[in-house]
């Protein structure tokens, strides 16, 4: 019936490789099995049916953003050895990290000398790749800063971020809004990445299985030195690249590794190697929260 064909078209647009698995005769598995099968991460799909070639050749693949790739390679180096063995870090409760770049961005840039540089941008993220067995631990907006103006040694950005979730389904204008104020301290070395915690904003959306997240993000930055109470100097023109959305997840499926959860497998505990020193400053400073969560989880 038409509805099914349209469904499969939407499905192909959202997650082409799942649709490919249906097109591929080798994978005509019974419905129930196929659904479970379609949930398998691509790595296992390829390994289990050696369908990589057909899968690889058939399914067009969107190329990821180069900055996002650089960040994830850095995260990989932090989390695993050269041979790919996961490092046991305190607070390393995640066994999955997903980075999404916005599908859609309409950028509005207005300069208001008093309030400083304001960047507002509409972002649409499609989170279809997040499986039902992946539970959200933390989500952050990942900004990469390219400052064109050389920054003096110690300067502080006082930033304000407000997020509105566009909910087109309801006529009422979007109500879920979320605003964070935080200050960034740039040391002499230009900071490349800033993670801004939006977990409390995203948690309810993911918990209700919302897979299309539409955000209006408003980012105002002033340059000022908290020591001197003078009025913030002129805004610096920080070129803001639209942020990526980073999800730290705990995959509860059988194939995923649960090294930190000793109770689950009764495994030999990996040797802890000290405090995890993330390469990224988390301006929300919720490391403590992360640790307590870590302790609770390991307990």
């Amino acid at each position, binding site marked *: 019936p038409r509805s099914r064909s349209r469904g499969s078209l939407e499905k192909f647009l*959202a*997650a*082409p*490789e799942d649709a490919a698995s249906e097109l591929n005769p080798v994978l005509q598995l019974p419905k129930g099995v196929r659904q479970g099968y379609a949930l398998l*991460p*691509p*790595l*296992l799909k*390829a390994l289990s049916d050696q369908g*990589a*070639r057909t899968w*690889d050749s058939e*399914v*067009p*693949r*969107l*190329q*990821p*953003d180069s900055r*996002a*790739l650089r960040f*994830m*390679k850095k*995260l*990989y180096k932090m*989390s*695993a050895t*050269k*041979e*790919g*063995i*996961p490092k046991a870090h305190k607070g390393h409760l995640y*066994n*999955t*990290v*997903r*980075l*999404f*770049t916005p599908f859609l961005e309409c950028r509005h840039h207005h300069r208001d000398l008093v309030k400083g540089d304001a960047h507002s941008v509409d972002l649409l993220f*499609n989170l*279809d*790749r997040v499986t039902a067995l992946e539970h959200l631990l933390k989500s952050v907006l990942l900004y990469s800063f390219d400052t064109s103006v050389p920054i003096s040694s110690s300067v502080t950005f006082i930033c304000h971020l407000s997020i509105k979730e566009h909910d087109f389904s309801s006529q009422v204008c979007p109500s879920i809004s979320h605003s964070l104020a935080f200050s960034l301290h740039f040391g002499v070395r230009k900071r490349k990445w800033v993670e801004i915690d939006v977990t409390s904003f995203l948690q309810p959306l993911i918990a209700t299985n919302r897979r299309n997240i539409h955000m209006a993000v408003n980012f105002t930055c002033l340059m000022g030195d908290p020591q001197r109470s003078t009025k913030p100097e002129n805004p610096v023109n920080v070129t803001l690249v639209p942020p990526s959305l980073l999800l730290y997840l705990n*995959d509860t499926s*059988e*194939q*995923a*590794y*649960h*090294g930190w959860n000793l109770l689950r497998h009764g495994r030999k505990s990996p040797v802890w190697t000290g405090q995890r020193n993330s390469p990224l400053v988390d301006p929300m400073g919720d490391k403590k929260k992360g640790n307590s969560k870590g302790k609770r989880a390991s307990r």
Partner: protein
Amino acid sequence: QRRNENPKAAPATSPYNLSEYFKQFVFPQNECQLHNFRLSFSQLKWDKWIIAPHRYSPQYCQGDCPRVMGHRYGSPVHTMVQNLIYEKLDPSVPKPSCVPAEYSPLSVLTIEPDGSIVYKEYEDMIATKCTCR
């Protein structure tokens, strides 16, 4: 001694020695053990979507299982029973096989079809110990 008393009865073979007798108990030359195997995802042409690691050593287990398994392989008693069945009762029942007993995980960085990037830690991706079962 019995042979010396009555040499006719002894078959005309080389003098009987104990080492022949014990040979049936020594471990087989190519006994069951872990073997190295290293691959790169580019050999499988998967390097377009598997970003890291570049090389992956899944390892594998190969070799004959000795008749007396015992503590050496941590084999359950059933393995000895299976071996006995194969030797004494029914050779169509397979001898115990050399298989992995323990694994370690692997972290993989991949690009998803929608262009998003995922870091995942998979269970049981590298064999680290063998056993006979």
